[in-house]
């Protein structure tokens, strides 16, 4: 219904373009120069206004009516239910209305389903009619405005600029969307579970003590996840930082042009490989290899060891560190190198005493961005790290991470409204931590640029 309405609006806009352009051409007659704006701008103005009017009604109408429908569904529920029960009934009702399976059936759910079906039909028709109607109105008004002195071009350009600005605003909207969607669910979660238990509890098994959708506050301690994430991140950085940094040093100050032309693409290939491929590599090759090597040395290495996931994640981050470090090392002005060589310093001395100190902020920011990536990386750990929340510092054992648990909760077969709470709380924590690292890194880079640009 709504997509047809959108198509119809677009069709109206296209029609408006040709009609308005035709009118303008007719007005101009043999002397088109008497028109203030060329016919194509008259057409463009009418078309863009028609399309925007219709689509805006559609989009904002959709948002507002969705809010209204939610509100209507919840207010129709019987009194005396807990928050999670209400969520469950509504989501089941919506599922039933769509012909899908619900977790349970019951009268309250059927009522919700019927109400939802009725409301969404009204919503569909209402929005379709409203959007097409508004678009038609805008079209008519626009066509009436076509005249010789009408400043169609300035008006058109004004609208174009507004559209451009809105596009730029989408980045901000995305951030707002992320924060709002994560925060909303997180706050609901923390209204039932104390933040303290989540941040400092050491037992993580959120779905094992669920009664009527309410979790056991003693089993949502995320410390084992933070510790596991930290452990794997540390291993990854222990691999990525030395290898990446030494590669960058070699590339920028030792390698011949020929060697560079081979090594740089190689690192770029490493950077372009999707993380799911690294995950496969970790699970199918590196983990068994480490397990067998460990067994040969008399160590018991878990087949989902933190070491395997960490090492492969480190490999993934190598090109990240090396290319960013290479950039900042190259950005150290040649004059500083010359100054050092001119005093009879060797390359190694120049690098250690002049280049690295000068490039340090940039390298630090590369490392911070690498850490942020390692913390947020999902596929490698999902495929190669464990599921069990195991609080240990031994890299040979299986640990789990924040991202693994988010995936497990969301893709698991638990009722979505139950699993969403801890998952979004973890997501929000993840977002905040990586945000701190990113901003820290961006500030360092900015400072670095100020010095050398």
């Amino acid at each position, binding site marked *: 219904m709504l997509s047809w309405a959108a198509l119809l609006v677009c069709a109206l806009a296209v029609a408006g373009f040709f009609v308005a352009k035709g009118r303008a051409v007719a007005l101009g007659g043999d002397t088109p120069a008497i028109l203030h704006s060329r016919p194509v701008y008259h057409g463009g103005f009418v078309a863009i206004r028609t399309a925007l009017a219709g689509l805006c009604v559609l989009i904002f109408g959709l948002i507002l009516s969705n809010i209204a429908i939610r509100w209507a569904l919840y207010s129709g529920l019987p009194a005396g239910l807990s928050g999670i029960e209400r969520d469950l009934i509504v989501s089941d009702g919506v599922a039933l209305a769509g012909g899908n399976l619900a977790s349970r059936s019951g009268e309250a759910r059927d009522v919700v389903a019927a109400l939802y079906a009725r409301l969404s039909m009204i919503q569909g028709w209402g929005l379709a009619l409203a959007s097409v109607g508004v678009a038609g109105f805008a079209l008519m008004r626009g066509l009436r405005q076509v005249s010789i002195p009408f400043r169609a071009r300035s008006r058109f350009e004004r609208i174009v600029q507004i559209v451009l600005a809105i596009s730029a605003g989408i980045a901000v909207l995305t951030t707002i969307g992320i924060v709002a969607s994560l925060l909303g669910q997180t706050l609901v979660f923390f209204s039932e579970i104390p933040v303290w238990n989540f941040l400092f509890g050491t037992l993580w098994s959120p779905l094992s003590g669920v009664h009527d959708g309410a979790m056991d506050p003693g089993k949502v301690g995320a410390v084992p996840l933070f510790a596991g994430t930290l452990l794997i991140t540390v291993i990854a950085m222990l691999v990525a930082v030395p290898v990446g940094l030494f590669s960058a040093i070699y590339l920028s100050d030792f390698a*011949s*042009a020929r060697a560079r032309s081979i090594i740089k693409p190689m690192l770029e290939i490493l950077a372009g490989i999707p993380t799911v491929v690294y995950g496969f590599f970790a699970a199918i090759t590196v983990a068994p290899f480490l397990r067998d090597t460990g067994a040969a040395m008399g160590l018991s290495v878990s087949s989902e060891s933190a070491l395997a996931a960490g090492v492969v994640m480190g490999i993934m981050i190598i090109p990240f560190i090396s290319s960013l470090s290479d950039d900042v090392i190259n950005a150290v*002005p040649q*004059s*500083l*190198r*010359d*100054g*050092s*060589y*001119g*005093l*009879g*310093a*060797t390359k190694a*001395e120049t690098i250690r*005493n*002049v280049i690295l*100190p*000068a490039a340090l902020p940039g390298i630090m920011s590369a490392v911070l961005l690498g850490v942020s990536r390692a913390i947020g990386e999902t596929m490698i750990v999902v495929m190669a790290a464990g599921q069990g929340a195991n609080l240990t510092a031994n890299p040979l054992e299986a640990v789990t991470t924040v991202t693994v648990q988010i995936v497990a909760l969301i893709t698991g077969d638990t009722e979505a409204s139950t699993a969403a709470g801890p998952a979004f709380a973890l997501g929000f924590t993840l977002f905040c931590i990586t945000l701190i690292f990113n901003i820290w890194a961006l500030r360092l880079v900015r400072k670095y640029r100020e*010095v050398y640009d």
Partner: protein
Amino acid sequence: MTETDPIKFRCQGVNVWYGQTHAIKDNDIDIHDKAVTAFIGPSGCGKSTFLRCLNRMNDTIDICRVSGSLLLDGEDIYSREIDPVQLRARVGMVFQKPNPFPKSIYDNVAYGPRIHGLARNKADLDVIVGESLGAAGLWDEVKDRLAAPGTGLSGGQQQRLCIARAIATKPEVLLMDEPCSALDPIATETVEELISGLGERYCVVIVTHSMQQANRISRRTAFFHLGNLVEYDTTDAIFSTPQDERTIGYVSGRFG
């Protein structure tokens, strides 16, 4: 009087190529010790390139090739036995744009002595830093803020810091590549005085685009044009009685 100065550098048949470009064409020149020698010439004439041959700074450029014989105290500096690192410690260099390291003033000057092991202890190092800053005429200006970053000094001070840094390494020769071109006139004057003084004790080679500067501070002047050493004589002779048409044209300001 001038010919009594001992010869520090004896260069014969020097050629330099940048890739396909023949930058220095078969030049011979003797550079004397304890005197200032100036290289002048229009932009792109090869004077800086030639200067950078004298301490093998050109080695850091991949596409650059040097041939011919360059003898420092009778020793071929391009021979296999010579380590360019060692050579550059003996032949110090000051660059066109002041390039202090992003470190403290003290650490800038101490850098050379540290890497070359000139000081046995902190006290030694303090002495070397003090003497070098003094020799560069900077001591009185910075003695109270040795820990301040070298990049915080004014342009002229930065350049003198770079000179102090070069002296601290205890070189035999000082190469200066247009050391005043990035400085204002007052700073230039200070640095010029300093260079004149240094000429008493070191073999100083300076590249300059300013004929007046060459005239003021150097004992001998070499005029380069299109990669050729056109004329080389005492500064007085070059500016008062130039022999070559091109030198006459250049010193009289007809081109350049």
